[in-house]
């Protein structure tokens, strides 16, 4: 079962897009791929105030991910704790994973010629830290939670 989840407290999100850049800088990504994104619906007036809420999206780390079996090099791996990540050594950049993913989550990194995707910053998580987007969220709107906490 997936252990982790990134949750956005939309009440605190101000749409500053900090998380997207925190992620890119931590993963040393060039212009091109974004591993997470903030989006919003068009404004709608609620009690006279035009409002919208922001959504955060990264990889869903599916229970039964389509991207894993499609990979011809077994470079897409699901860990015990549910994190789906790419073994960069094995990846050949064929992007079959992006085709298999219903949301096209894996991105092409033009600098390495390989696929790249959100892995909840597993290196940080393994050190007891939180993903970059959560750690540095401008308004502490993003939370890294484990399923036990949600229950």
């Amino acid at each position, binding site marked *: 079962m997936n252990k982790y989840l990134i949750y956005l407290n939309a*009440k605190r999100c*101000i749409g500053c897009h*900090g998380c997207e*850049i925190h992620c890119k800088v931590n993963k040393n990504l060039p212009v091109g791929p974004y591993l997470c994104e903030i989006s919003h619906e068009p*404004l709608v007036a609620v009690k006279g105030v*035009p409002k919208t809420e922001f959504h955060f999206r990264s990889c869903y780390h599916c229970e039964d991910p389509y991207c894993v079996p499609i990979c011809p090099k077994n470079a897409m791996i699901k860990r015990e704790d549910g994190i789906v990540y790419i073994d960069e050594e094995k990846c050949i950049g064929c992007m079959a994973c992006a085709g298999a993913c219903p949301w096209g989550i894996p991105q092409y990194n033009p600098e390495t010629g390989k696929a790249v995707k959100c892995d909840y910053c597993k290196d940080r998580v393994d050190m007891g830290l939180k993903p970059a987007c959560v*750690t540095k969220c401008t308004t*502490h709107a993003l939370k890294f939670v484990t399923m036990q906490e949600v229950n």
Partner: protein
Amino acid sequence: MSETVWSMCGMCSVRCPIKVEVDGNRIKWLEGNPHLLGGALCAKGSAGVALRNDRERPQQPLIRDGGRGAGKWEPVSWDTAIEYIGEKLDIIIDRYGARAVMLSCRGGPFMDLFKTFIHGLGSPNFTNHDSACGRNVHHASLSVYGLGRKGFIYDIKNSKHLVLFGRNIFASLRIAEANQVLDMLDNGGSLTYVDVRQSLTGIKATRFFQVRPGTDYALALGMINGIIKADAYDKEFVDRYTTGFNQLASFVEPYTPEWAAKECGIKAKKLKDFISEVSEQAPQVIFHPGWMLSRYRDSFYASRAIHILNVLMGNIEVKGGQLFPKGPGDCGVKGLRSLDSQVPKPEEKRADGVGWKYRHFDKGPGLFHLFYDAMLTEDPYPVKGVICYRHDPFNCFPDPAAQKEALDNTDLLVSIDTHYSEFGWYSDVILPESMYLERDSIVATQKGPKPRFIVRRKAVDPKFDTKPAWEIFKLLADRMNIGQYFPYNSIEELWQWQLEPTGHTIEEFEGKGFVSLADEPIMYDRDNLDGKFKTPSGKIEFISQKLADAGLASLKPYESPRKAPKGNFRLIFGRSPVHAHGHTVNNPLLNELMPENSLWINKRAAAKLGISEGDLVDVISASSIGTIKAHVTEFIHPEAVYTVHGFGRQVPLQSRAYHAGMSDQKLQSGKLMDMDPAGGGLCLCEVFVTVRRSTKNPKRRVEL
């Protein structure tokens, strides 16, 4: 091996405290200082790493080799550049005196260096960007409290209601402040937002007043009237600490909430509900007096009225209100030693007329735009040398073409900056400063309920042949034979010299990045604030003698803003949280996030003009045209169009930002000298433009 460096961000003027993890000469990680910001950082802050790696910034000193602005540069050594500047300054000083040299910066906590240099030369002409920013708010605050705009800090977290007049607090984005606002909202507080359009801040508001552009003053007057009529002001506080209340009360008599609602184009009931709400929440109500209020012809008076609203709430020195910032003196600690205080004060009159011709203005930094007048007319005397540190007047002030005309009467233009500014591109010498992760800065004081000393530390070595400000000004000073005012040879010596009277050492900054001077917030006795207001009367002045002496009203009768001529729109500008004006538009990562600005236009107005979402539109002012994509929305007032400031850059070496988007200041033709006579701020939103669907929209496809 990884090393931790405690430092300060430098991507925008907020200068958030940061923690940087460095491996060798590589930045492994950076985040907001966990002790002060809980790790939080904005997009700009993280993108500092991209700035460091960006080659599209000046990499060594450059001396102009062709005509000004032609973009032909000779890369030179630091010795050659400093000697070149020295020779030019020698000639200017010899011919016209030291007063013919001026220096401008963007303000901030490190000004001691720059002031010392210009004052050491013997010139009084130190200035900054503020006449295109907060001067109206600052002067309004001085006229009411005798204290400048930094004379209060806002305890937003503990307030019950924050009222923002166009202060787009989540886009301007001071991280600590933004979190305070959200904490207040989480605690059930109210947020009232006033603007001509909906913004990132307004979507979090509990109440939104979309007002007609230029009517903020009317709204504030209506609020004052309603609060006085409802007897909801803090009588005890007003009696004890203010003068002129009766005049204020009779002045606002005609400005009823009904009148204000009509003038602003909002519902009277909504305004009355607001008045009842704040009446109950006082004194934990904060009316933000504005930040960048160089906007309308009456912005000074609008800000004055907002300051007065705070006084009526009695919110001074109460939890959840406006607090006096406490300094080292309040903690029994001596302040930092100042370089500038060793320099004899130049006796000369300022070239911008501030302090003698304009006595009601703060002569600290004066008003930059008035120097252009002196350059053109040589009255009161010629200004021949301009040094801009980290300040780009062409991006900041209106009408760069008019600015260039004035600058053509000068003999030396020097730009000291980490990136190519538009001014730098036009100047004679560019001295490249190391970007903030590559430099140390002098120790600075941060006042507040818990004051502290902070310092920026170099995290990595400069990638290019750049230098930090403390060294650049030392080199210039030595060349100009005023090295005695810069009594140090290294930053360590300078820190020690600064800190000596305080009893603290630079080692104490290790581990946290700052030295806190108080464990608990310091509060003054609210019943004994005598002496805290620095007005001539020692009271909070609703009626200011200083203004009267300058022939200005303290309470100016309201005049309705000029209606846009038929087919015209008022051009309003603002900010995005991902950019710091023009400073970051060429940053690879931030440019990717927001490569260009758009023109917000009202849905009905757009329909009449045949403009649809995403169409390219020409935005036409008296002398300039900008072309950008339209954003069609019902959430902007039909009299206004809006764009984000900082785009439309014309420095060819900034390939990403070059001609991307539209520059609002280039459309502000004829506005360089259009100053609010009472506040000193420029009237940047008194610009009308027409909009048409651009012929650049493709009509047909002729390829296969």
